[in-house]
């Protein structure tokens, strides 16, 4: 596959690892957070941590839209699917996310709810068109990368005058989360991880552009390298970050230049501005309630907003106290620090959301790293 396989070349990876080792100054440490779950997945899949010197550590960030979805929101989707005779269309990722009382959309489906996995928002729209006597709700999750696909079908549904289509909108925004990770913690008892620099979101930035991070990172005096998702991309970004940190430069740089620009995709941005309004605040699992951190449908499209169309439970649910997802999402704890990791909480029986998505830090560690970690521990 062109433009993928080239960036998975083992020889280049080893040469980059050598370059990183040369750049890492022995008398200091480099704590780098990869924001995106996609980066976490690649890091585990290719065992990239094994290629890095001991003083370069990767902290896994909260950039997985499934992992940060709070239990209360999962409950809303489950309740909607069970109680309003709708067809709920969703991406496969959210099917197994646990709500409260051991519920999930996949379990709701086995209890008779009509929950269907779609590959694209357009599939949900097409379903609504083909079944005019059924209410079709599209559960929209994801960061700014995924939001334009939702905006596009909202505009099309409006143009078609569809009355049996609506969107349950849980789209979240990246910059406020980055800001929260770098700012003072909302709860002083639960500090944020100490981060020296960021491996920045690649596909989110195709939409919003890399310029937006400049002021933010400058304010917090940290560097960021916007990175692609292949192993070579990530290693190159680490090398670039080490250069910036060694030179004490708090700059934003783009490694993923074949895809990301400073300005981003203006057409998609215009569509986002037209269709969505920014919520005053939104609850993130692990980060708490963050101001201006999520989208809802703009008032103009209120009739297509499932949250306004159907009565939904409005409650916040505390996370399972044994689950360390909140601290793991903030980067202050490692999956292996969690007492229930790999015992009560596995991909088969996930307690926390980090174990559900294959991009979640816990699932990535469980799936790819358990043996290596166990060996290390045994030694």
């Amino acid at each position, binding site marked *: *596959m062109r433009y*993928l396989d080239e960036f*998975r070349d*083992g020889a280049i*990876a*080893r040469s980059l690892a050598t370059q990183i080792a040369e750049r890492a100054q022995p008398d200091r440490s480099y704590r780098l957070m990869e924001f995106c*779950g*996609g980066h976490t997945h690649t890091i*585990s*899949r*290719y*065992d990239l941590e*094994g*290629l890095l010197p001991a003083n370069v550590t990767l902290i896994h960030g909260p950039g*997985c*839209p*499934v992992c940060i979805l709070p239990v209360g929101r999962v409950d809303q989707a489950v309740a909607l699917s069970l109680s309003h005779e709708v067809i709920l269309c969703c*991406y*496969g*990722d959210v*099917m*197994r996310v646990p709500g409260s009382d051991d519920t999930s959309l*996949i379990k709701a489906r086995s209890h008779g709810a009509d929950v*269907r*996995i*779609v*590959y*694209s928002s357009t*599939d949900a729209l097409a379903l609504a068109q083909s079944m005019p006597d059924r209410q079709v709700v599209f559960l929209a999750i*994801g960061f700014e990368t*995924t939001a334009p696909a939702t905006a596009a079908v909202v505009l099309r549904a409006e143009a078609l005058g569809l009355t049996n289509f609506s969107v349950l909108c849980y789209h979240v925004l990246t910059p406020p989360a980055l800001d929260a990770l770098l700012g003072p913690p909302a709860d002083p008892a639960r500090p944020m991880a100490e981060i020296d620099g960021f491996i920045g979101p690649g596909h989110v930035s195709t939409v919003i552009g890399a310029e937006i991070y400049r002021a933010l990172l400058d304010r917090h005096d940290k560097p960021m390298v916007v990175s692609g998702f292949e*192993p070579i991309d990530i290693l190159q970004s680490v090398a670039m970050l080490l250069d910036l940190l060694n030179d004490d430069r708090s700059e934003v740089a783009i490694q993923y230049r074949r895809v990301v620009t400073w300005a981003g995709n203006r057409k998609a941005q215009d569509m986002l501005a037209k269709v969505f309004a920014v919520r005053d605040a939104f609850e993130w699992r692990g980060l708490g309630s963050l101001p201006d951190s999520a989208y809802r449908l703009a008032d103009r499209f209120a009739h297509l907003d499932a949250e306004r169309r159907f009565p939904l439970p409005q409650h916040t649910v505390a996370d399972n106290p044994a689950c360390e997802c909140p601290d793991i999402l903030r980067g202050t704890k490692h999956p292996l620090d969690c007492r229930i990791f790999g015992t009560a909480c*596995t*991909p*088969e029986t996930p307690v926390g959301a980090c174990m559900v*998505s*294959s*991009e979640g830090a816990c699932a990535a560690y*469980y*799936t*790819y*790293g*358990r*043996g*290596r970690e*166990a060996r290390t521990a045994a030694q």
Partner: protein
Amino acid sequence: MTQLIDELFVAAFDNPWLSQRNDQAAIELPEGRTVITTDGFVVSPLFFPGGDIGMLAVNGTVNDVAMAGARPLYLSAAFILEEGFPLGDLARIAESMAAAARTAGVAIVTGDTKVVQRGSGDGVFIATTGVGVAPPGVAPSADSARPGDAVVLSGPIGDHGVAVLAQREALRFETTVTSDTAPLAELVAAMVAAVPDIHVLRDPTRGGLAATLNEIADQSAVGIVVDERAIPVRGEVRAACELLGLDPLNIANEGRLVALVAAADADRLVDAMRGQPHGRDAAVIGHVIADDRRFVQMRTTFGGSRLIDWLAGEPLPRIC
């Protein structure tokens, strides 16, 4: 209605046992260990490139018998039909089962049909039982892997799962990949003739190669190490997995098998397999090690190592 359906099966499967119209079939078995298996088949869509649910039921059952090193001989089949299921589709499924049975050298000697209310089924479900006989001394079993054994795979993985996924309404993509569904009885007969002492024989169906290797490691209380580069995956299967966020190791196969033999027997086995149409791409993909934790590990193309885990549930396409 039911009589019409019975006629359809009797005509399609065409053998003396069914023609006798008894509620059972009396069969004679040759000498050896008798092997019996039963399986239920549900698949959506019912027809897919390279096969359909009927072919899948016959091949799946034949293969389960064959994985005991046995030659499959007889099948039974029960059909649960949803009311209103088109007779034309049923005839197509029956024909395809009959053809698959002929290819595999088995007879479908008894069966049953029930019709359930619309909404209580998904078109058609098929339950099959297979009977076969293994030559004396041939007894592969998933608990018989030993450290040092070679792990042999019969061909590229993931074809069946990707062919089916490509047809799912919401995923629909174009691919030339067709299901690998095939009866493996001939292949197994050739393997058993070349190396009677096959330790383990399994077909990596649901859950894919990852699940099968983990089952073997677990049941035999050993570790398995495979080499990522040695596992054949077609370009289009890899691409489909890339698009949908899936791993070919978790994707179902319906015409592949994994064999574990003593390292000294590996070359002889692979040679025998490559002489068979369903074993042309056979290759050694790894080996068994002593490991109390029963881990299945993969040497990655990067020279690193990662664990291959069981997948929780059916693989779902993902966007993140």
